[in-house]
């Protein structure tokens, strides 16, 4: 098969991969902040629950989590879901997995902020919520950006794991073409796509980091 055909066939998969990527970030970045909040809570049971959650999410394969999230409604509860659920399952699995990693990144960032910042804010009369969003979080973002970049780049490549539940994202499609053509051309093209995708991601993150460089 000629290359332009391969690329045309892969395009649909590319769109799906980008969708998985964007939706996962959209949901996991805020969810991670909530989990970090629970992980640092003064209420011990919540703290432990979040600790266990993070431990499981980070301690088991994402591929396994994808399978579990996809099959659990049927095998655990006997619920048959429509075929749309396949894509939803991918987003759920990626979101709950990445949120666990982001939660630990947030926690590290928040704990790195000097207690004097909270004290100065308190003396100036800022409420707890104002202190968090006006004083603490902007500083946390700067601190955590390099670690977040790492995770985001990993996520680009991890989207390919969706093939285990037969989501027609790029890697799934590439594998099918490769098998049909008895050629690895499609896989090479997919590899180039992932690489270009990550170059763009790295460029954007570097730009963000530079924008935060106006202070130390």
């Amino acid at each position: 098969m000629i290359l332009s055909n391969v690329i045309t066939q892969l395009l649909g998969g590319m769109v799906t991969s980008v969708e998985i990527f964007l939706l996962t970030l959209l949901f996991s970045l805020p969810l991670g902040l909530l989990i970090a909040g629970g992980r640092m809570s003064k209420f011990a049971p919540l703290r432990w629950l979040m600790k266990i959650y993070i431990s499981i999410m980070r301690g088991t394969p994402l591929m396994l989590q994808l399978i579990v999230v996809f099959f659990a409604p049927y095998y655990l509860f006997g619920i048959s879901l429509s075929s749309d659920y396949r894509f939803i399952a991918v987003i759920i699995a990626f979101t709950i997995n990445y949120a666990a990693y982001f939660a630990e990144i947030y926690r590290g960032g928040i704990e790195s902020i000097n207690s004097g910042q909270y004290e100065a804010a308190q003396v100036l009369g800022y409420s707890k919520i104002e202190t968090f969003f006006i004083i603490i979080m902007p500083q946390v973002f700067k601190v955590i950006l390099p670690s977040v970049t790492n995770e985001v780049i990993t996520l680009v490549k991890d989207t390919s794991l969706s093939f285990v539940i037969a989501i027609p994202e790029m890697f799934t499609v590439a594998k099918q073409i490769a098998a049909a053509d008895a050629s690895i051309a499609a896989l090479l093209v997919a590899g180039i796509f992932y690489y270009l995708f990550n170059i763009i991601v790295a460029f954007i993150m570097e730009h963000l980091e530079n924008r935060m460089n106006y202070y130390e």
Partner: protein
Amino acid sequence: MSLLEVKNLKKSFDDNVVLKDISLSVEKGEVLAIIGPSGSGKSTLLRCITDLETEDSGEIRFDGTFGLVFQNFNLFPHHSVMKNITNAPIRVQKRDKNEVFDHARYLLKKMGLEDKEDAYPCELSGGQQQRVSIARALAMNPDILFFDEPTSALDPELTGEILTVMRDLAAENMTMVIVTHEMAFARNVADEIIFMDDGVIVEQGTPDEVFSSDNKRMKEFLGKFYD
């Protein structure tokens, strides 16, 4: 009636009793210096009065606004000098933006920093940062200004600039409570001095009274500065 009154204040951290029954009062326009060795409870006393610590027992009576100047400045590094000074008056005190900006420019001029309003704290020297933090505290129109060892993180040259600013404020009758290790400054500028040791007020009075005290602990402490 005194502007600030502290009665029978007690504070412990676990088994460590830091403040043992402290009482004091501050009049409007008065400059009170609190001196004493490290670990004597001076900073904890200030932190209880400014609500950064909760006392175990006792009473703190103060109605009004206060400012606190920290040893380590605690400026917000991601905000410009101007925003550090104006954000709380605008957001918290809900004051008019233009009025607050004018006030901030007046204070920066007074601190000799009129050309620094767009700078970030990391671009300033320690002395400049501390002057910004004094301006930030003053921008809230405090009835009383607390200083927690404001020069301890500065080298001697920069210490001088901060002491000059504080001397000017005293001359304007700003009510101030200053925890300090600068004995000469305390002696020259304070109306009243409290000497603390081991969680109690050992000596209290005018600078002349305190510095000529016969108290053994007081003499030992001052000896370290004059020998």
